[in-house]
């Protein structure tokens, strides 16, 4: 039995309370210096599934590093201490938490989910040179020099999923897009999917960008299915479970593609494994054997997955591995810089024109779309659900697609009124 977003919020309430107190890893060697890593994330509320699981993942990696004696930076040995703050996706709290971490807890860097909360902290962060990370590449602006999207470049990577779908299911020629109409997740993803579909020669025959007040998805799904699409695209939806349920009940037989399908076990429980099998998305389970391929820059992904599921059996989400990957990326930068100063770490990371990227093939990108090359794009997995499990089918190159087709993406972003610098 899986777990829904609501169940997640309920069952992890205690975890959030404990985590919000900022309890550190407690396996430091006596007298060992520590580096404090900040996580200013939503641990409660609707966005919690994209916050708290990341803290759990970071704690596992930090414990691992500390158990191995710490990390050597500039000839000094440091333990890793996680400091967290739950802002509940409220921008006032996000700013308070950010300042608390930097000024009182003295963290060396701050990881955030992204969106409006990042917009609120960056003016101050820029004036104080705070090394900050986001999961949303669209947060980068020409002014945010200290903001990096080093792991997830939402939603650029979805182009690889569409490309794979078009090559492997050439008979699928029409698509509909249904997603929420928020700018940070829904519209950005919708524009990117539209661009990817156009490049792949797939016609978008209908699109429904709905508000967050929708509770009954039956009429909405009926309306788009009336166009007889071959593909149902959920983009980056907060309502994947509800949409999948409706698709199942209304007898949809085509392909389903989505940015992610968190808690897909719950979808299977509400529909059927046969129905969910074949769904395409982009967030792998870390027990996938393909993650042992050469070029994957995440240490022991399968062991990480096993430990995670042992400690938090029902809490795996898309971000479980992303924040740890960002933290590891920052440690790499600090090692190269020989210290933890944010400007030095930033310079050390940016000096590498082929930055380490979790799925390989990384390159700094972003200037032509958002004004700064502060986003790392590279290879990204295309995941298909098979036998009830997520399995990587291929690693697609986001970079290659952007080199050839970024003008198409800009066209659709402008169509939706989204910010670009071009």
């Amino acid at each position, binding site marked *: 039995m899986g777990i829904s977003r609501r169940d997640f919020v309920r069952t992890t309430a205690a975890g959030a309370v404990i985590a919000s107190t900022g309890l550190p890893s407690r396996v430091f060697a006596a007298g060992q210096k520590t580096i404090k890593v900040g996580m200013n994330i939503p641990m409660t509320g609707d966005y919690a599934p994209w916050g708290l699981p990341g803290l759990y993942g970071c704690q596992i990696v930090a414990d691992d590093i500390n158990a191995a004696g710490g990390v050597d930076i500039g000839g000094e040995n440091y333990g890793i201490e996680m400091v967290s703050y739950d802002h509940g996706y409220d921008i006032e709290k996000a700013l*308070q938490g950010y300042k608390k971490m930097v000024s009182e807890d003295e963290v060396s860097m701050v990881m955030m989910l992204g969106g*409006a909360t990042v917009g*609120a902290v960056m003016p101050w962060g820029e004036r104080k040179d705070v090394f900050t990370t986001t999961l949303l590449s669209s947060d980068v602006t020409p002014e945010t020099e200290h903001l990096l999207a080093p792991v997830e470049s939402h939603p650029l990577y979805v182009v690889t999923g569409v490309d794979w779908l078009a090559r492997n299911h050439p008979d699928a020629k029409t698509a509909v897009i249904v997603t929420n109409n928020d700018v940070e997740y829904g519209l950005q993803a919708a524009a990117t999917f539209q661009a990817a579909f156009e490049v792949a020669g797939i016609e978008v025959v209908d699109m429904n960008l709905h508000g967050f007040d929708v509770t009954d998805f039956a009429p909405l799904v009926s309306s788009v299915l009336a166009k007889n699409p071959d593909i149902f695209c959920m983009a980056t939806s907060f309502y994947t479970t509800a949409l999948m349920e409706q698709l199942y009940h209304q007898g949809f037989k085509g392909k389903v593609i989505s940015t992610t399908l968190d808690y897909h076990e719950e979808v299977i429980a509400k529909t059927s494994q046969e129905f969910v099998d074949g769904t395409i998305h982009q967030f792998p389970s870390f027990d996938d054997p393909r993650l042992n391929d050469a070029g994957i820059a995440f240490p022991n992904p399968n062991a990480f997955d096993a430990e995670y599921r042992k400690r938090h059996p029902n809490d795996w989400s898309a971000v479980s591995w992303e924040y740890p990957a960002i933290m590891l990326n920052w440690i790499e930068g600090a090692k190269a810089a020989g210290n933890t100063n944010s400007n030095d770490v930033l310079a050390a990371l940016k000096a590498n024109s082929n930055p380490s990227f979790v799925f390989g093939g990384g390159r700094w990108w972003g200037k032509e779309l958002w004004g700064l090359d502060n986003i790392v794009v590279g290879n990204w997995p295309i995941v298909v659900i098979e036998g009830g499990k997520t399995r990587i089918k291929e690693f697609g190159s986001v970079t290659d697609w952007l080199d050839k087709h970024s003008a198409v993406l800009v066209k659709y972003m402008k169509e939706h009124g989204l910010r670009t610098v071009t």
Partner: protein
Amino acid sequence: MSDQGRFNLRHAALGAALLVIVVSVPHFLKFHHQDLLIFLTINVLVVCSYRLVTLTGEWSLIHAVMLGVGAYAATLSHNHLGLEIWFTLPLAGLTGALVAALLCFPLLRMTQFYFLIGSFAAGEAIRLIWVEWVSVFGGTSGLRGVEAPVVWGIDFLDPIPYYYFCLAVVTLCLLILYRIENSRIGLTLHAIHWKAALAESVGVDAWKYRALAFIIGSFFAAIAGGLKIHYLGSVTPNQFTIGFMVFILIWVIVGGYNKFYGPIIGVVVLTIFDESIREFEIVRPAIYGGMLILSILFLPLGLESIPSKFRSWFGAGSTPSEPPLTDR
């Protein structure tokens, strides 16, 4: 010394003590609590401006959105016209007043419960414009780029300088609000609240005064929105939802609204309380709900009535017994 003299001396001493506290308090706080102090100072203006609207007996659910109107006006004028905070704040206030003036025509045709629901609907309509008109208002992610300035080397994005700036602006606004309430206009607003029909029978244009209260309240709410957004650096529609409006109502009701300082007590006490229960975020709505119910049951006149209750228990005065907002 005469009673009047003692009274004046006591008030002067209280005022001086209050001044010392508000001026010195940020220096005793942690960095992130200084931020909280700024938002608290701004929220004092929010509740006092809301109280002015309620003086006529009408409770609206659009006040939070009026903050947003000011916030968006300040952001747009900063981003597109290059105006600094000294100019964006008055402009924010005027925009709030203008929007309120336009809304008077449909909204003030209603009273009591209908006005309450109508104001909620109007507020949601404005919020939807911010959400749907992405190219102008940035949709759900809102607008960024509005910042507090650096003047003569003083970075107003640092909490202490910005707190003093807020304190000055809010104090000025409160003085104006206080003067309005204690002027002939204020007395007329009270009269409309308690005996609207009688006031109209002697020539008072109740519609005009209700509109005036709504416009002035919205003017100051919009200034509060501008103040907040220059510190936060970004504005989103989600900051001005019915959820925030409920907080405004709770601050005012728990503090009490019969006296000018009642809502101020409410917002100060509940903000401190709120920070103390930060680690119990999930149960926070339940705690607030419980407090509101207890307050209505046992302190219907709010926290402001506690001193007079004490005095009555010790035989030094009468129990405050006037039910609030009841036509007499």
